[in-house]
């Protein structure tokens, strides 16, 4: 358990409420933008950008990643590298023209 006092926690509680309002607003914004019928490329970029913003808020404040120990960051950096490989490597199949 972290060594935070009750005063610090009360400050956290205010942050949680603000983050909730931001997440709620971003949810409505992403739904509203999806009705604008942007081109698929623009729609994907905007939707993923908003989802990344929301995800960062959850990870930073609810999961306290904004002030975490180094070992957690190291584990997550390694995870991010593997996740990127997991998503990008299969896409190379589209450039594989052997036999075509």
């Amino acid at each position, binding site marked *: *358990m972290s060594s*935070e006092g*009750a005063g610090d*926690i*009360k400050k*956290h*509680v205010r942050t*949680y*409420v603000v*983050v*909730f309002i931001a*997440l*709620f607003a971003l*949810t*409505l914004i*992403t*739904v509203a933008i*999806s009705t604008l019928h942007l081109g*698929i490329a623009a*729609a*994907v970029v905007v*939707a*993923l950008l*908003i*989802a990344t913003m*929301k*995800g960062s808020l*959850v*990870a930073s404040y*609810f*999961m306290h990643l904004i002030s975490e*120990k*180094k*070992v*957690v960051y190291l*584990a*997550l950096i*390694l*995870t991010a590298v*593997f*996740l990127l490989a*997991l*998503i990008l490597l*299969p*896409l190379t*199949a*589209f450039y594989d023209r052997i036999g075509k």
Partner: protein
Amino acid sequence: MQIPYTVTARPETGLYNAKLGIWLFLASEVMLFGALFSSYILLRIGAPQWPHGREILNVPLATLNTVILIASSVTMVMSWASLMMKRFDRFRLFMSLTILLGLMFLVVKGFEYGTKFEHGLFPSQSTFLAVYFTLTGLHGLHVIGGIIVNSYHLASGSKMWGKEPERFTNRVEVTGLYWHFVDLVWIFLFPTLYLL
């Protein structure tokens, strides 16, 4: 034998063991959902045509479910904050709300699935539906898992608060990390399945 470092931080990591444990578990969960997202992307860009999610799925219901899950993340973190402030009564309130919101999410999801089945829309119908049911089904199983663990913390598990309050607070904290991760996955599932 006593389980080591349940309360105090292990000097090598600066964390109590369960916290490092849950982060490593969540890293493996990123790979699990990442593999499915990767398959989704590959199937989608390789398909000659792909339906627009909002034409098949119920966007208002999914928006409601997004708000429910976000709210449950707030009540989850508030249940931990309540324990940090030594307010067990408030912990019980916020934990009950978290479980209730989790159940509400499942009811809405069940309603959504039910409507799909009524219209003859099953995973075997199309690649889009197979992807939709696989991703939301696996996510739903994670919600069920979280509800079970949270219910244990609220019921018999809470006896630990009397004897080892710090250890109990840590248990709630790591469960919260898992619950927020489940919320985080939904934050990406919602736009990629329903809105694009």
